[in-house]
């Protein structure tokens, strides 16, 4: 039940995509087991915050430049941007409740 609301960002469009509004980006890879655990939570957040928050994923295998730029050295990592500025870095697994609180701080 992949949410259609979760976008896919790439190295090519990343800077442009996070420029406006509040954007949550999930850095992941196909081989990362914990990433599979957080993926459904990220999808639920995309549905629940629809219209207020942009939610996107970046596959780090295909897009090595963006994780390197933001010093992502472990996945899953979630980055939250507001109008282009990095506001939050969430490393590892978190509950949906806790992520909801973090997002609400910036809306």
């Amino acid at each position, binding site marked *: 039940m992949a949410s259609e609301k979760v976008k896919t960002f790439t190295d090519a469009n990343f800077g442009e995509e996070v420029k406006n509004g509040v954007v949550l980006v999930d850095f992941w*890879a196909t*081989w*990362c*087991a*914990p*990433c599979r*655990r957080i993926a*459904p*939570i990220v999808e639920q957040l995309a*549905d*629940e*915050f*629809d*219209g*207020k928050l942009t939610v996107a994923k970046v596959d*780090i295998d295909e897009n090595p430049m963006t*994780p390197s730029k933001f*010093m*992502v*050295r*472990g*996945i899953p*990592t979630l980055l939250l941007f507001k109008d282009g500025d990095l506001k939050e*870095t969430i*490393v*590892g*697994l*978190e*509950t*949906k*409740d806790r992520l*909801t609180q973090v997002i*609400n701080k910036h*809306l």
Partner: protein
Amino acid sequence: MSIVSTEPALKDAALRNIERQVIVIGSGPAGLTAALYAARANLTPLVIEGIEAGGQLMLTTMVENWPGHRDGIMGPDLMTELRAQAERFGAEIIQGDVSSVDLSQRPFTLKVDNASYLAHALIVATGASAKWLDLGVDKKLSGRGVSTCATCDGFFFKGLPVAVIGGGDTAMEEAIYLSKLATRVTVIHRREALRASKVMQDKAMSSPNIDFIWNTEVVDIKDLAQGKVTSLVLRDVNSGKTSELAVDGVFIGIGHVPNTALFKGQLALHDNGYLKTHDGARTSVRGVFAAGDVQDHVYRQAVTAAGSGCMAAIDAERFLSGTLHEDSLHSTIVS
């Protein structure tokens, strides 16, 4: 639909008082085996999988000591199979992390996000999580070069030097995995011999790019100011002399801590934090059973976890049907 304020969620919770014969907390080999057995006993168990769903095996690669797989099986694949097997017989598995429990009366109450669950019998299989160093700086640099999961984060250290801290099987598995990616893997161990199994020791020792530093502790990780790992400060435990080792990543494999915080003050614990069990899978509260690493600080194997999960489910089933033999210990432990 959008949830912004917490109010609608709270209102919703009042409506969601889900009651089950058996609830299992945790979804590693212990929890899922308990669910499989409880499901086959027609108890339609509910599994609350927890934030580390699938347990520690989800972070491993090849598991070579799970009986019945002569060529080994990938940890995540094993958990996918076990999960599907439990579901096939009617176990229901839900996402979520239990935030509190009330074991003072039956049915027991569990809170997950804002919902409440009621269980007539409870199986605790919350497992154990990777232990950190207690330096403070290690958690601050988590995801910035400090990791407890080589299979998750090794990717970022291709062609770079890394260190592994610890001397057990977890540390050796991390070192072996990382040796295929990193230029050099330095294992730092505070004793002069490994605790790891012979097979793992041999594999690590024979790898050309794994080095060992013995009798040495990590006392600091640099560099917090730069927001990334640049080096480790080491101290020889015998001489007290300190030195510095330049690395880009450090993987911590110093063991695990049982996930028992939820049960403090409600279930009897050993001094080391593990749950006390007796007469099979019984805890200090009637109707609450425990299985897997949360109650096992000795064996800690996938297969022993699964075995104790089976025991917990059988005990729970007998408890619910009133055929569990009462034991002498209960009267002394239950206050």
